[in-house]
């Protein structure tokens, strides 16, 4: 990999991270009505808590100094204190992150595999009834809000399929060993992951279908056909391989979307991840936790975009020169 390219991308990454942290600061600490200011000025906090707040954020200094203190805290991994739990935000976030990653990971695997396969199939049958049907079905799935899909699945599970748990990550009070625990979690994972996957499969399928269809009208695809390599090779080795490029580009938008979906799905299924944390912290006005979650989500998107860029670079030899 070209070192200059990597360095340039890293530089962009750092700048974006910095901009995001600054944006966060402005949003939560500076704008009129921002919670920290309100909290500090209201009479609802006891002296000890208020002092802690003032000390931590440097509220008796100017905005600019507050900003520097904020940056320093950030670099030390200090994200503040939860109003509700009275513990550092980081300790509230830590367990939630793992659960969300598990959920997203499972959903993503299904989404990508099924979505791309469906998209390729749809593209290979382009302009036929099959293609139109799949496109309408996927548009329909895309039009369903994640939480609504979840509610329908819960309804179905509660009414008919009693095997699948509809809430939480594990059965409370269940006494089994490690393997049993994992199996329990897996059972709980099925419905939420399925819900997330259903909506996003539509997204991937549409992206793939459009990308492959666009690639199929390129000259080199005709060349491949003329060589007599056979339909499957034409579609996979020539069309799809080149279509991967716009797919990877479009897929970097996917992360932002699936995070939004995760919030809804975790809320509906009471899955104890970052999404549920956001929901609860909004309800309980626990702004530090909300701020921490948002920051983490933003960083996740930025990091994913960074890796997607690298992946694109690896896939497209034309870009490698720069």
């Amino acid at each position, binding site marked *: 990999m070209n070192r200059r390219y990597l360095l340039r991308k890293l530089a962009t990454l750092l700048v*974006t991270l910095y*901009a*995001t942290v600054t*944006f966060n600061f402005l*949003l*939560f600490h500076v704008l009129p*009505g*921002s*919670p920290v200011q309100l909290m500090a000025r209201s009479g609802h906090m006891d002296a000890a808590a208020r002092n802690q707040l003032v000390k931590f954020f440097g509220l008796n200094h100017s905005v600019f100094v507050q900003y520097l203190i904020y940056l320093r805290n950030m670099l030390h991994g200090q994200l503040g204190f939860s109003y509700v739990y009275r513990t550092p935000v980081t300790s509230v976030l830590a367990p939630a992150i793992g659960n969300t990653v598990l959920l997203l990971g499972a959903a993503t695997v299904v989404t990508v595999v099924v979505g791309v396969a469906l998209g390729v199939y749809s593209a290979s049958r382009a302009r036929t009834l099959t293609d*139109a049907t799949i496109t*309408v079905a996927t*548009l*329909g799935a*895309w*039009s*369903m*809000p994640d*939480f*609504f899909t979840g*509610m*329908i699945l*819960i*309804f179905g599970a*509660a009414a008919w399929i009693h095997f699948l748990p*509809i809430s939480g990550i594990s059965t409370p009070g269940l006494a089994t060993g490690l393997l049993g625990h994992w199996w329990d979690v897996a059972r709980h994972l099925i419905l939420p992951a399925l819900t997330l996957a259903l*909506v996003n499969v539509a*997204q991937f399928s*549409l*992206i793939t279908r*459009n*990308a492959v*269809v*666009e690639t*199929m*009208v390129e000259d080199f695809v*005709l060349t491949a056909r003329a060589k007599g390599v056979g339909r499957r090779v034409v579609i996979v080795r020539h069309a799809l391989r080149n279509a991967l490029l*716009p797919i990877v*580009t*479009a897929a970097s938008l996917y*992360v*932002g*979307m699936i*995070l*939004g*979906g995760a*919030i*809804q799905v975790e*809320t*509906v299924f009471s899955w104890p991840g970052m999404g549920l944390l*956001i929901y609860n912290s*909004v*309800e309980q006005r626990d702004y530090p936790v*909300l*701020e921490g979650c*948002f920051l983490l*989500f*933003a960083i*996740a*998107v*930025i990091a994913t975009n960074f890796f997607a860029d690298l992946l694109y670079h690896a896939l497209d030899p034309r870009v490698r020169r720069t």
Partner: protein
Amino acid sequence: MSQLPDVTPPGEFEVGVSQRDLWSSLWHDKMGRAGVIVLAVVLVLIGLGPVLFPFNPYAFGSSSGSLMQAPSRADWFGTTELGQNVFREFLVGGRISLYVGVTATLIAIVLGAGLGLVSGYYAGWRDTVLMRITDFVLVLPTLPLIIVLAALFGQNVIITSLVIGLTSWPQTARIIRSQVLSLRERPLIQRIRSLGANDSRIMFRHILPNVAPLIFANLALVLSGAILAQAALAFLGLGDPVQVSWGTMLHNAFDAGAMSLGAWWYFIPPGLGIVAMTLGFALIGNSMERVLNPRLKAQR
């Protein structure tokens, strides 16, 4: 919130498609026509519904006076846990969803198209600065950002529309900018510029009409995204507490445990309402996109 993907390389849209062409091919395209019909049905329902079925909004106990009842002749869609008539809630709730969706979209389109126009036309440093800003906003995850903004700034309909609009414009800006960038190289535009025509005149009289079809296609897709965003916000409890929307109905249904209780009549109608409205606009937008980019029709 989910945004329908735009995979087509920028600048490859057919410039020659006029507005009239766009709307007529929409009707001729089967999917576009289906979208228009679905949308028409939904709009008629929420527009005329409360007129045709004037239920007393302040009556809590409905004619049957019962709670969480399945649909019956008295209450067509059954009742909620508070005894409200679900059908009436359904008819009224759609309005807010549509209102917020439309307002947010208008904000997003005006902002996005405006920025895209300026950025693409002037190019140079203005373009670079605007694009950096656009890229930054794009990086922020949409629904989390909307949630945070709503939590910080309030939950009424205006603010919600503003918040959703402010997070949806980057997609439009990029598409319009690409198109404008390629348009400004065309001989006609260059000729007019060399004649000394005023910049804003060129932008509005010559370039804007050419990108108008593109704006409409994008508008439909942004609108469906906005409706989903509003629904999600309302579901998470951040909708306007005074006005009932479909998302709020789903929030209430969830809180009341409708799914586990098997009260399908409570959450299916508002959910399907959201799906129908979103799907209608998505089909229309998708169809328009295919008219503007014939490559998607796959002629080989």
